[in-house]
């Protein structure tokens, strides 16, 4: 799945002080945070719906998705990274967007371990560049939300 010889091209961004990256091939665009419409009963990680030039796009809050609830939120300037995964457009809410990185193969570590259980399903690699660790995220895993039913049950009980 992960090609070991060619460099990874990642768009980096931060969330709760940690750097993450996603393959640029999945990135459609980066926009400022938009007015968001809440979706009641949706899974907690769904921040809501935004109007992206006439089409309705679901926004996923990265911090909630990765269950980074303990750390306080330092960034007021949130950004939306618009992903296009298998022709489905999803917006990812992050704290700030960084550079476009070309990671040379030696700096890339596939399947790093150990990872905390909340990150395990989403992280597919680790990049070490100039003392900075960048967690490589799997956009498919981020966008797959099969637990809608379960969380609906939960919120209905509240």
């Amino acid at each position, binding site marked *: 799945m992960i090609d070991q010889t060619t460099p990874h091209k990642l768009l980096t961004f931060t969330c709760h002080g940690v750097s993450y990256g996603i393959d640029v091939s999945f990135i459609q665009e980066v926009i400022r945070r938009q007015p968001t419409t809440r979706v*009641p009963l949706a899974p907690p990680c769904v921040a809501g719906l935004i109007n992206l030039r006439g089409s309705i796009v679901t926004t996923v809050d990265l911090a909630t998705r990765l269950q980074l609830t303990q750390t306080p939120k330092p960034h007021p300037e949130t950004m939306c990274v618009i992903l296009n995964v298998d022709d489905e457009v999803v917006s990812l809410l992050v704290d700030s967007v960084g550079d476009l990185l070309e990671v040379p193969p030696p700096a890339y570590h596939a399947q790093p371990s150990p990872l905390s259980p909340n990150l395990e399903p989403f992280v597919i690699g680790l990049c070490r560049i100039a003392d900075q660790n960048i967690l490589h995220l799997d956009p498919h895993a981020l966008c797959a939300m099969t637990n809608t039913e379960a969380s609906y049950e939960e919120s209905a009980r509240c």
Partner: protein
Amino acid sequence: MSEHDELVPGFLVECEETLDALDEELIALESTPQNHELLNSIFRRVHNIKGMCGFLDFTILETIGHAGEDLLDKLRSGSVALDGPRTDALLSLSDAMRAIVKHVREHGDEGENKYEDLVAALRAALLDSTNNAKPPSGINHTIEPPIEKENEAHALLHRNALDNYLRVDVCLLDTLMNLAGELVLARNQILQITKDTEDPTLRSITTRLSSITTDLQEGVMKTRLQPISTLWDKFPRVVRDLSHSTGKSVQLTVRGQGTELDKAILEAIKDPLVHLMRNAIDHGIETPTDRVAAGKLETGQLSLSASPEGGNVIIELTDDGQGLNTERIREKAIERGIVTREQSETLSTSQINSFIFAAGFSTASKVTNLSGRGVGMDVVKSNIESVGGQVEIESTFGAGTTIRLKIPLTLSIIPTLLVTCGRESFALPEVAITEVIRLNQTEHSAPVVCVGDASFIELRGALLPLIFIDKRLGMNDDSTNQERMIVIVSIDGRRAGLVVDRVHDIQEIVVKPLDSRLESLPCFAGATILGDGRVVLILDPSALVRELGLRRIESVESLSSEATDIDARAARDEHLIIELAPNYLGVLPLSAVHRIEKVPSDALHRIGEVPVMHYRDEILPLARVTTPKESVSGEPRELSVVVITTKDGAKGGLIVSSIIDIAQGLHSVTTITGERYHTQVGIIQNRSVVVIEPELVALTGAEDLYPETSPGGIA
């Protein structure tokens, strides 16, 4: 293949259309074998396909087409007569052609099957001429040439008419439809911005833009409308095949073929309709012998009709077969635990019949075999509902069944009422809304009655169940709004009031589906973008009302109409009005009330979960209604207990706060059946009350008669 490859796709489409028409004409021909015009038309169709095949080098198709043509020619000349086997042979010709066309479309060639049997059958049909049926051939031959000429002229005219039509890819229409939708949104945005403008030029331009957009949108929508006959034309064939295979005689009558529906909707209702039709013939209509025995016509009557009604189309499928066996359905429903026996007795026939729509209800049951209808009725229902339609069933045991489908004309652009609840706005489809009233919680004129977790309000002598949207959607915005609004919706004869904070104006919106990950949320039918660019969710009133588990409203008069004994009726009519908890009234039939006792609270004991008390050397199980408010205030020292005797002599006690009155004239009794509760509510002395069933008190004797959340409590 030949050098004419680019002609193939067009040929295939034409073939498919020709074959559909061919089927229809063959069936028609079977009943009117003397119809020369029809026969000529059939001949021409087969001839055309054959001709094109020679050109495009489809040899198998050409061979079978040729064999069919020969037979049709003989039929035309009158040297053989059309009978059952010949019709069968011609229909299998149509099937074979269709199969080849499909193969060409999918694989690019005609496939291995040479259809030699079919050719042999067609040739055999040629030879097997019955001499006595043969009309004098001379006459026919002299008549034929002018007919042929006339038909050619007719065909020419027909072709000229066809020149006005153009084949368009549906994808293109979809794109246009979406663009028209976007244009509507952009128009709304401009209207919003220029609303207060003083500039007369701008004002006139926006007005013009607005009307053009509306016309364009309607025009594009019309391009997607197709007459329902495009779907129904296949049905005579289905009916014929089914009646042959089941050995039944069925006549299909169709009305309203010209009724138009959106192509996507037609697609969606195709399978359910075929399924319903199969059910009607397979299970509904009896065998000829049974029919004669039942005093019916030997031929079963199946009628299909479509008619527009407002923004919907009503499709009705009626058969005069054996109808649904309500008793069996009731038994099965009880067996499967859908209702208890007690509950089932309060339900009407149509309520019980509707159980056949329950998922998996009939698949493994004997109901299917014995009384018909069933396999996959839940699928039919969900398919129809997925396009915003509704299904109703009406049946009289022994006399037949009518299934009524209510289908929206189009899917994408709908007028909606905008409402707000807390900080959120929602769009509510206007079709479902009957009226909007104020919920005045401060005045005592129409208090909200709570039963378990269900709320009601009295409206013009009837009880209206309420759904608090903020609560239902789990929104915790503190709403201190006392002046809330109730939007009354009516779904399938069931009414409910949706409580919202404010209502705004009506807007035409373009329905956009929710993200696939959010589709499973039950309350929303989609989302849309408003004129100001905001995204709002569209509430799905039918899902909300369905959740209430509300059945059709039946009045108590109709339920008790069988009672012949006037005294018994009068006695039954008298009710004891009791206060179960603060602001929570209930009634008990006076005939069931044995005594009213005052007991000290320490006389109560418990046996397991059930509170009991000693009463004249008997252990009396007790029931009560607890509300959250009461549990806080603590136990009073003395309790009023209404001792109840049921018809069967069982005794029980109901703990009440106080006794209010004895009165007659309980009316507007409504049954609510839900996952969490099953009860009846009604109105007496202009007060909303819960109708308490004495049997329930005596038999269950539970701590909490109408539990807030526990599903097992009462059902």
